């Protein structure tokens, strides 16, 4: 834990220094996306790495958070905070609805159920033109205001986002250290043991699923207020798959791995600009190779376990 806190301080100091060194708003914006995706992956890694469940529908919760925030603020003029909370509420409801039955089924079935969910969300975004603007989406989503400070520039949003990443990271860390976290880890390894001890395995798994949805939804609301424009193409199955991929590549169940994975997801397209069309191919090969040779993810290359709560 101490190692983690030290790492946390170093890493986030570097992050907070970044905009002072690199002034170009475009690059600051790229790092904002890294922060937003990190929030999603932090949640997903708890679900996948600890509860050992797979969700291929996180883009769906990301979308629910984004669109709820966006629609409530543009169409109904509600203050952004209300929009974010509404998004969280809706996501939690949907995830409960999804998790309760699914977690009774084996891994494949949850995967397919979450895949189905993500796709249904995508279909609705495209088809419910009156509310969501359909395939063309909608824009002019107002900027967030934080304690009277209007977040309408890249640099302000940067600090706001990474502040939240910091908080979510800390929160996840303490969650994993708590009795709940330990229970989660025990059931990932072998379910029959905690079951025989009377642990309500099922309950813990549902809870983990809700967490992942919560994180994704919040990230979605941030995304909406940063982009100020939303269209269904940001919330595809491919994104859900890439998020899972990034958790796996970064390291299952490892919070630093989640950050690393989100970073790869954000920076690879920038680096590969000329080879953009090969991006997916590379992701695919990456994933397969990691699964075969490094099933514990890139983070396992570094000796010693960090932020797994061990």
């Amino acid at each position, binding site marked *: 834990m101490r190692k983690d806190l030290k790492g946390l301080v170093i890493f986030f100091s570097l992050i907070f220094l970044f905009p002072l060194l690199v002034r170009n708003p*475009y690059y600051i914006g790229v790092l904002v996306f890294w922060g937003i995706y990190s929030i999603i992956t932090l949640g997903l890694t708890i679900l996948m790495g600890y509860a050992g469940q797979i969700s291929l529908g996180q883009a769906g919760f990301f979308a629910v958070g984004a669109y709820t925030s966006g629609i409530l603020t543009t169409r109904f003029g509600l203050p952004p905070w209300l929009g974010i909370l509404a998004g969280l509420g809706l996501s939690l409801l949907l995830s409960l609805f999804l998790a309760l039955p699914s977690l009774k089924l084996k891994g494949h079935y949850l995967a397919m159920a979450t895949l189905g969910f993500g796709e249904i969300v995508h279909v609705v975004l495209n088809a419910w*033109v009156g509310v969501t603007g359909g*395939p063309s989406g909608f824009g002019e989503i107002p900027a967030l205001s934080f304690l009277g400070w209007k977040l309408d520039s890249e640099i302000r949003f940067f600090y706001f986002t990474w502040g939240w990443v910091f908080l979510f990271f800390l929160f996840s860390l303490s969650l994993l250290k708590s009795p709940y976290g330990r229970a989660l880890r025990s059931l990932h390894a072998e379910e029959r043991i905690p079951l025989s001890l009377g642990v309500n395995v099922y309950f813990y798994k549902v809870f983990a699923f809700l967490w992942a949805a919560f994180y994704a939804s919040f990230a979605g609301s941030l995304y909406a207020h940063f982009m100020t424009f939303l269209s269904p193409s940001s919330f595809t199955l491919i994104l859900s798959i890439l998020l899972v991929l990034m958790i796996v590549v970064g390291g299952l169940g490892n919070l630093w791995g989640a950050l690393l994975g989100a970073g790869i997801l954000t920076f690879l397209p920038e680096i590969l600009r000329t080879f953009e069309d090969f991006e997916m191919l590379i992701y695919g090969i990456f994933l397969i190779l990691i699964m075969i040779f490094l099933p514990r993810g890139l983070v396992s290359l570094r000796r010693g376990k960090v932020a797994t709560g061990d």
Partner: protein
Amino acid sequence: MVKRLLLLVMFSLVGCLIFGAEYRIGAVFAVTGPASWLGDPEKKTVEMLEEEINAQGGINGIPIRVIVEDTKGDETQTVNAVRKLITRDRVLAIIGPSRSGTTLAVIPIVEKYKVPLVSCAAAEAIVKPVKKWVFKTPQTDRFAVERIYQYMKKKGIKRIGIITGTTGFGAQGRKHLLALAPKYGIEVVADETYAPQDTDMTPQLLRIKAKNPQAIVNWSIVPGQAIVPRNMKELGMNIPLFQSHGFGNIKYVKAAGEAAEGIIFPAGRLLVADLLPDTHPQKKVLMEYKRKYESRYQEPVSTFGGHAYDAFWLIVNALKAVGPNRAKIRDYIENTKNFVGTGGIFNFSPEDHNGLDIEAFEMLTVKNGKFTLLGD
């Protein structure tokens, strides 16, 4: 030591001024993706023109660089691309986007950052109400609808069915179709829509068929323009099909195959340039563009490349006149009069950021797999 350092700095600065100086113009086109038959000719056109200008020494001796971003026909990608061009590449002006939906998405951004945008998309909503920094070169969709209705009135067509895509362009077209029909004594008996990724419009066409219209109007770009005629043929619907001026690429005709015969649509004169009389004021510009493009790229011209051609020259002419200043370029474009382009003859003003009227359209049709003027 200090002297050497100073000399180094001086040389680098001068070097920057000489070698680094260039005029950067941004371009966002749907080069790949469902709207690639719009964006690809647009990209090819601006690249061809960029080379032409630089071969002549650039503008006032300074080379231009056109930075083309591929939007894949997607709104979010377009928003990102425009942001990138403005903040990272600091362009002087932007050509594009290719589609109405994507243009509408980026308007708030160019207005915020105060960068002139000359769009290659057609919806009237882009320039009405007028936005300070936004212009467009394609003819307005409302006039396209009126041109179609004018023709229908002449032919005694009174009952029509409309089928439109749910994209920005399609939705705007539908709005005009519904609003203007009464003016021409036309009744819209069926009003169906489809999503841009749909590959089968049979359910919608069946519903339209049931209402027995005399003609159908389809309004979309993307594959819909080819799928609707094919589905109609499969269902045995022989009534005339009218399309928007988004049909202006021969590839759509090829994709629709036999079903394309007889489709009627309004378009700029580029597609039938060789059929125009020599005295026509646009003929010289049209033929020259056609010749250069077709010999360079070995493929027929499309109206879309023409829109990019017009946008490019508007910006470049402004640059030549007022130099690298976004606000001045904007002012210059706004006051351009009598600009002979491929889309028509443009007359801009502070109230009119499109500069074309209904005369910019000819009615065309498809005969033997080729575009030709619609006879009376």
